[in-house]
């Protein structure tokens, strides 16, 4: 018997028992559909995350931060400063090192005034993969350009839905900064009154007799002075302002994968905004005090530390050695590529869990196949006897019945894949509608890669053949004389 004979005979038999075949095949269809729709969800998510990573250039990005002080580590953790930037950019395989330099700004656009977080970025950094995907417009042209790039969602928040229309419009960006001089001025202004008042209350005897009295006096004085300085520092702020033209609109990933800043401004403006004074946080002032950069020269890049430095990597260089070099400098390196490997690992378990559901259904369906085939053999005992009398050997009979369960498996799997994909499409449409109603970007989280089709089909076929094996072996052992005698 040829393969063609096997298939035509099997199809004929299944066609003859339409209802029974339909029910048996349906079992496989449902199982494979469950398998496919479940795994297409896993595959869709995986595809989406991979695309996001690629789109954002995260495979070629490494984040460098201060090493967390750990037990037994006596050395001071190395800080991230401009010197670090130079050191890091000299590591082979590092295309570019740029700092995370974020600060709050006040944005005035049309009649709206809002406070948002801005980040200064050198123009070169904007040409890396991480920032290469623009929704509209172009990247900031140079470090001294009076341009700004804004996030799409930020624009939406301002009531601008068409990103294109925003290009070329200007916005006023400002920071109000506490400055050391304003603090000192306020201190000096208050000191005269203070001294006179204190002087009138002085108890000279105690001053000379009691050491503690003197000390208390000094402490109170210093405390008072600091209080005055801080008040001045915080309340008498200078306003630094820039009018910038919107040159590009970007959009940073969904799902909080990478927290994006609302604005990206050129380095030059960023330096003006962030180094001319201090933010509202008094600790910054003390940090500058201890590092000796209390009074930077105007316009000069002062001593500055960053919470994080981003490295843009040459994709042809393996990240392992780069990471080692960064760590050798005393920093902590975090690479998204590594994180991605963990995500991939997690997806394997996720997919396995999903596949289990489909496989359990498939096992149930296979019991249906066993049942159908055993019934078929009982009904066709005489036919088996005839076939044997005509010269069919055991393997022919076995193949004949295996082919039948194979056809059940093949038809069931093929229809199951189509059905499962239909379910996935419907689920995807619903999910996207929900996302849209929640104001999120609709994302297709279902995918049907070729490997999934291949695996689903092979699984369906393999399980059906395994299910058909025992009945087929039983059919092959039928004694022709007994079978022919049976009425």
């Amino acid at each position, binding site marked *: *018997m*040829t393969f*063609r*004979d096997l298939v035509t005979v099997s199809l*004929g038999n299944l066609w*003859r028992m339409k209802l029974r075949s339909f029910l048996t095949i349906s079992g496989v269809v449902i199982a494979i559909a469950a398998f496919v729709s479940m795994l297409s969800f896993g595959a869709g998510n995986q595809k989406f995350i991979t695309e996001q990573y690629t789109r954002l250039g995260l495979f070629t990005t490494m984040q460098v931060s201060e090493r967390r002080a750990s037990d037994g580590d006596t050395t001071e953790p190395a800080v991230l400063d401009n010197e670090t930037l130079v050191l890091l950019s000299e590591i082979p395989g590092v295309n570019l090192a740029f700092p995370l330099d974020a600060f709050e700004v006040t944005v005035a656009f049309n009649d709206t005034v809002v406070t948002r977080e801005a980040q200064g970025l050198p123009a070169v950094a904007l040409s890396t993969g991480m920032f290469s995907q623009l929704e509209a417009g172009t990247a900031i042209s140079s470090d001294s350009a009076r341009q700004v790039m804004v996030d799409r969602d930020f624009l939406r928040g301002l009531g601008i839905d068409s990103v294109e229309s925003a290009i070329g419009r200007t916005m006023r960006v400002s920071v109000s900064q506490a400055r050391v001089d304003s603090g000192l001025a306020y201190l000096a202004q208050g000191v005269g009154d203070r001294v006179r008042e204190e002087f009138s209350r002085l108890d000279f005897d105690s001053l000379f007799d009691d050491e503690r009295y003197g000390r208390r006096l000094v402490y109170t004085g210093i405390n008072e002075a600091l209080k005055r300085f801080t008040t001045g520092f915080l309340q008498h702020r200078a306003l630094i302002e820039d009018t910038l033209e919107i040159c590009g609109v970007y959009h940073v990933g969904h799902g909080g994968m990478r927290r994006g800043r609302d604005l990206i401004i050129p380095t030059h403006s960023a330096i003006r905004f962030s180094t001319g004074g201090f933010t509202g946080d008094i600790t910054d002032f003390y940090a500058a005090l201890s590092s000796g950069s209390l009074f930077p020269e105007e316009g000069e890049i002062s001593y500055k530390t960053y919470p994080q430095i981003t490295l843009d990597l040459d994709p042809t260089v393996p990240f392992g050695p780069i990471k080692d070099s960064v760590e050798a400098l005393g920093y902590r390196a975090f690479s998204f590529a590594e994180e991605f490997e963990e995500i991939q690992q997690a997806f394997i378990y996720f997919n396995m869990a999903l596949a289990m559901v489909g496989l359990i259904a498939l096992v149930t369906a296979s019991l249906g196949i066993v049942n159908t085939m055993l019934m078929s053999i009982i009904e066709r005992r*005489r*036919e088996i*006897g*005839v*076939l*044997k*009398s*005509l*010269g*069919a*050997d*055991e*393997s*022919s009979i076995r193949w004949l019945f295996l082919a039948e369960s194979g056809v059940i498996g093949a038809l069931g799997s093929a229809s199951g894949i189509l059905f499962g994909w239909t379910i996935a499409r419907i689920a995807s449409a619903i999910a996207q509608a929900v996302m849209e109603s929640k104001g999120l970007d609709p994302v297709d989280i279902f995918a049907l890669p070729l490997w999934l089709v291949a695996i689903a089909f092979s699984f369906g076929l393999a399980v059906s053949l395994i299910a058909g094996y025992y009945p087929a072996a039983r059919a092959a052992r039928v004694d*022709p*004389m007994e079978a*022919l005698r049976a009425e």
Partner: protein
Amino acid sequence: MTSDITLRTIDICRFYRRGPQTVKAVDGVDIEVKKGEFAAIVGSSGSGKSTLLALLAGLDTPTSGVLEVDGISLQSLSRKELAAYRANRVGVVFQSFNLIPHYTALRNVEMGLYFNQTPYRERRRIAGDMLDRLGLGDRIDHRPADLSGGEQQRVALARALAKQPDILFADEPTGNLDEENSAQVASLFDELSGRGLTIVLVTHDMALARKHAHRLVRLSYGRVVTETGEVQS
């Protein structure tokens, strides 16, 4: 010496054990059928004719004794080789036809060619021709249930002959045929025998056996009672 002997049995037995009882369906039979010979097995009902035929056709295995085809013992063959013997050399017409009820006449005849590597197109043509020759050319699309007993018998015969076997085993192939059709089948047998086909025919019809067979084997209670060679002169 044995080269012109196609079939030979030596003290062949087939017993059926049913609890304490033993049915000796075939009980020590020695027969020889030469190549191209037309042998007829006759005997009363229950004398073991069908059982002996099944043994000779390689469908059943003897309880004891030797069964040789062209000098080779069938018992020495593997199951696969035995299947090949049935597929390539033997055509069987059963007493109860044993047609597959859900297949058409044509398909039933085709089935006879499934296991001897006949290509698909050939199969169709040969099966159609064979049914034509047996006068069923216009019934090829009918299922057995739509055919009369005689027509079914002829389909069964067509199925056995389609593969052009070396030996034809026929169990009452004329049992359901009227005289005219019986005579037709008998003359077909004569023709085939004349072309070198070895035929073993089981029949009740003594007249037919006497008229056409070269050799007559009479069975009674599983034993050969008379064996006459070259009946036809």
